[in-house]
């Protein structure tokens, strides 16, 4: 639809070189499309978030942040991230190791399972925990008897977050480790290293950049998760509200400045993650290419 003049070049085979390199006009159009799309769907909303947050001045912004429930929400979000990201780091490395370095029955099934949190709606993942731990469930009475509180409390939020963010680390590592094979590990073992030394001195340095990407993505999602957490949290202000949930509550109360102030902090955390990733890529670009390319 873009440029009718492109068609003759495609049809006439003597102009084959023209068929693969677009004309300047088409190239400009493609780039404009890409940048325009990004600007409208990504950059603009981000600008609006910050613009709204500061719409009544810096004072109002800090006032909104420096509120008891808001601070509690920030603390809770950070706590959940601090617990669930390391858990998924360990699970992810273990799962990727098993899948990439061993042959066993049910491997394809395991890979599908790892993708499950991506394919299932987060709300459903949250509901699963309600069904599992709620008062009407099998486990519910037993938990109550022993005074263990999972639903509508921090453990439930952590569980839901771990579930939703599980694939990030594993997904990042599996192709990387599969590509690297087992040669380096075998070499280390043949030189007398035990399993732990092999992992620490050989495997981990080989996967560290992939692992870091996975952890950063996992962290971004852990802080931003809404659906699953919303189901299991119970929305108790100052207690079980994470930042995304708190944003929604404030927004529903027509507290635009408060909602956008918290949203801007959340967005800020995500931006820090992104900037960190970009800085690392700039600083260690050659090394990353080397460990990935081999």
């Amino acid at each position, binding site marked *: 639809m873009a440029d009718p003049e492109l068609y003759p070049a495609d049809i006439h085979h003597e102009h084959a070189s023209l068929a693969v390199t677009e004309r300047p006009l088409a190239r400009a159009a493609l780039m404009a499309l890409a940048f325009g799309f990004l600007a409208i769907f990504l950059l603009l909303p981000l600008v609006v978030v910050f613009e709204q947050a500061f719409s009544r001045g810096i004072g109002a912004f800090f006032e909104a942040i420096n509120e008891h429930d808001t601070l509690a929400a920030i603390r809770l979000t950070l706590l959940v991230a601090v617990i669930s990201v390391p858990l998924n780091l360990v699970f992810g490395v273990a799962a990727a190791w098993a899948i990439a370095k061993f042959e066993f029955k049910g491997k394809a099934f395991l890979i599908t399972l790892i993708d499950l949190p991506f394919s299932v709606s987060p709300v459903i993942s949250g509901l699963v925990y309600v069904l599992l731990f709620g008062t009407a469930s099998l486990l519910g009475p037993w938990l109550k008897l022993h005074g263990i509180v999972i639903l509508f409390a921090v453990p439930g939020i952590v569980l839901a977050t771990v579930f939703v963010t599980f694939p990030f680390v594993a997904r990042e590592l599996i192709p990387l480790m599969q590509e690297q094979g087992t*040669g*380096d590990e*075998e*070499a*280390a*073992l*043949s*030189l*007398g*290293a*035990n399993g732990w*030394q092999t992992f620490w*001195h*050989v495997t981990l*340095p*080989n996967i560290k950049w992939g692992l870091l990407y996975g952890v950063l993505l996992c962290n971004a999602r852990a802080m931003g998760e809404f659906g699953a957490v919303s189901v299991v949290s119970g929305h108790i202000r100052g207690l079980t509200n994470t930042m995304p949930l708190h944003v929604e509550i404030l927004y529903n109360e027509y507290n635009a400045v408060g909602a956008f102030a918290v949203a801007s902090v959340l967005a800020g955390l995500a931006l820090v993650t992104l900037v960190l990733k970009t800085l690392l890529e700039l600083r260690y670009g050659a090394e990353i290419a*080397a*460990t990935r390319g*081999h």
Partner: protein
Amino acid sequence: MEVRVSNVRKEFDRFPALRDVSLDIRSGELIALLGPSGSGKTTLLRLIAGLERPTRGTIFFGDEDASNRTIQERNVGFVFQHYALFRHMTVADNIGFGLKVRPSAKRPTKAEIRRRASELLDLVQLSGLEKRYPAQLSGGQRQRVALARAMAIEPKVLLLDEPFGALDAQVRRELRRWLREIHDATGHTTIFVTHDQEEALELADRVVVMSQGRIEQIGTADEVYDTPNSPFVYGFIGESSSLPVKVEDGQVWISDRPIGLTAPELPDGEATLYFRPHDIELLDECNGCIAGTVAASRRVAGTRRVELEIGGGRERIEIELPVGHPAAQKSRVAFRPKRWKVFPKPVEG
């Protein structure tokens, strides 16, 4: 260290990669495991290393049964086809790795490890490259580092899996000679896997020819080249020509004519005659010979390859003549192989 492989069988998912293999390797010997891909040579090497466990059978290191020892306990130096150097470590750290991971009681000091790494770098002729990373080395240099790293742990046995497989021809030849020198200097029992017969014949004290999970022949380069003991070895090592023949009363026949060769130990029946294309004598008159029509002739380096059509069966074989030999101009050539072997046709099934 002597290595004895005794009736070893290895299956992967019920598929036998090695069937009942036995092999005695003498201390200080340089042995080549030679065979096409899928012959089980790498599996045998990995079994000796302890990277795989045999399904059945035993592997002895000296008098000791090593079958249930882990690879760490076996103390073998293993060199991988694709080097498997640790890319985030310098050359010196790579070589020192095996010493660094030792339990503290047996671990040399840092200075000692560094000194040892330098020594080994001298041995592999890469002095001064301690601080380089593997990515900054050529393929040949990487393989030398890999060998130095394997030797750093003072292994009982040195195992090399297609050590020169990923290198170009020039570097291969160079490293081949160099490996022989290192072996003569250090005296390690060394086993290397290769699919390159030239490499095996030139380098090894003894060559183990393998096919389809079995050992076909074990012998010196001369033995496996001059007296192959099976059609496979004849076909796999060096050039060979083969012709379907018949054995009757110990005489070898092609269609309806005896060709002047006798095989008294063979039973009557169908068989195949093998010989080297260059190992023949030309005959002027044919009373008991192989005669054929020249179908094609081409110059290959210092010799002339002549393709002959034999008898009514339209079988084609090749012989080799010196360049400029008058027989190459003739339309019919009669010859008799000087060294040859007849193998009875294998029973089908």
